[in-house]
């Protein structure tokens, strides 16, 4: 293994210019992709906080009794991708209200009867498509025992529509840049391969296996992918720090949430993705060359 790494490094050194270009291409592609991801991560968090994570309240009418709960849960679950259903009895709701309004609890005490309805709080799994939320809410409302369903406001729906359009564009851009980076990587490997044709011929003649011959190229591809991803993210981080140090305060208070850098998971995914890119470019190239 050390041998292959040494070989790969020697090759990178001898093809400095080509490798530099490839690394820059990968870095830029990763930069574009991670800018989108940064935007989406933050936008998703914003939507989640505005939308309370796809929460909806189902208010039940007077005919509801506790025996009906299991059947109702089954019915609701069948209607959509529902993560969680929590039953909130009218007594619980009143207690909560009393706690929240302790100063006016005198007024609440005057009530003879609990005016609040029984309710179910549900959480939907996928709430980024507003139409879906709307559809689920409407079909829940159609259940005879349901009085009303309350969910995200109309403006959020429109925002989500735009956001989703943006997301599709983002995905398309990511794919495009991925393909460009892949093409460049594959081409670099091909050029490296041809520049070492004599060496490879000799290696074969002296009994090197195909694995032995290919391994340095793969190490090179993986290394390029990894470093490209690393550099791309580093550029993004620097830009983020430079921009956010001045802007976050005012923007965050305006948007009611803070802008954060990519999560560790996403960073891991990006690095893994770009490393894979290096490997895959190499794989495609060698597959084509060695027929």
């Amino acid at each position, binding site marked *: 293994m050390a*041998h292959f790494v040494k070989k790969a490094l020697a090759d990178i050194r*001898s093809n400095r210019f080509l490798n530099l270009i490839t690394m820059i291409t990968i870095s830029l592609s990763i930069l574009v992709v991670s800018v989108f991801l940064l935007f989406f991560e933050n936008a998703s968090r914003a939507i989640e906080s505005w939308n309370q994570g796809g929460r909806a309240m189902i208010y039940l009418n007077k005919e509801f009794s506790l025996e009906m709960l299991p059947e109702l849960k089954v019915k609701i679950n069948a209607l959509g991708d529902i993560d969680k259903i929590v039953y909130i009895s009218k007594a619980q709701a009143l207690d909560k209200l009393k706690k929240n309004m302790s100063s006016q609890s005198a007024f609440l005490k005057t009530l003879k009867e609990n005016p609040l309805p029984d309710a179910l709080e549900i959480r939907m799994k996928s709430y980024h498509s507003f139409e879906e939320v709307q559809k689920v809410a409407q079909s829940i409302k159609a259940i005879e025992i349901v009085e009303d369903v309350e969910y995200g406001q109309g403006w959020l729906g429109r925002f989500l529509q735009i956001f989703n359009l943006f997301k599709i564009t983002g995905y398309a851009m990511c794919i495009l840049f991925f393909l460009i980076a892949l093409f460049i990587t594959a081409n670099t490997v091909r050029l490296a391969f041809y520049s070492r044709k*004599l*060496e490879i*011929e*000799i*290696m*074969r*003649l*002296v*009994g*090197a*296996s*195909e694995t*032995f011959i290919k391994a340095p190229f793969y190490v090179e591809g993986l290394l390029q992918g990894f470093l490209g991803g690393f550099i791309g993210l580093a550029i993004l981080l620097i830009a983020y720090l430079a921009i956010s140090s001045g802007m976050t305060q005012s923007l965050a208070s305006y948007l009611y949430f803070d802008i954060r850098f990519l999560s560790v998971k996403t960073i891991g995914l990006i690095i893994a993705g770009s490393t894979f890119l290096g490997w895959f470019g190499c794989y495609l190239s060698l597959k084509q060359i060695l027929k």
Partner: protein
Amino acid sequence: MNDKRNKKLIIRLFNVSKRFGGKLALKDITLDVEQGELIFISGPSGAGKSTLLKILYLAQKASEGQILIDGMNLARISSSKLPFLRRRFGMIFQDFKLIPNRTVYENVALVLEAAGKKPSFIRKKVMQVLRSTGMEKKINALPPTLSGGEQQRIAVARAVVGDPSIIFADEPTGSLDSKSAQAILDFLMEYHKKGATVLIVSHNLHLLERTVRGRNIEISEGTIKRIAPVLQGKERK
């Protein structure tokens, strides 16, 4: 010849021909080589000597005929087994085929690295053959900075570093003065004495030490013209 009859036939060629386009470089070659035998191949330029060796060490495919090496049919050998067969060969190419941007040491070590040997073993072995060929002072040089004769000696060192059981040597002394040529031939003969089968294309037969014996195969226009025993000096019966 009787005493040799029970020896193993390591290389067998049956009606082998090689065609380049419409031109036949080898025509209907049939030949058996015994294990441990020393074979000289001679003939005019363009006769097909290199082509014959290339077909044997699998750099090229025969157009017609069958070749068996150690019982294996070269036409049917799987690509996964091919490297293992080649590791039993030591080749000295007429054009040396040294990797120009790798040092002398790396060029020779490559054979053992490809065979997956341990670094300490590689180091020891490479230094040993480079010393024997008189190139130990040039281990860090790049081949293009060396003279033809020096490159040739590295090619020889690389050919024998893996202790091959068959050595294919295409003009291993072509770029050397007679003294160096003699040294290299003697060096190769050491491997022959240790049991390696040696096929050698050379015009410097007269330089061989007197106890060596073998067969001289004369090729002309792609066919074997004559096979004659080479008996240098007194025979050791």
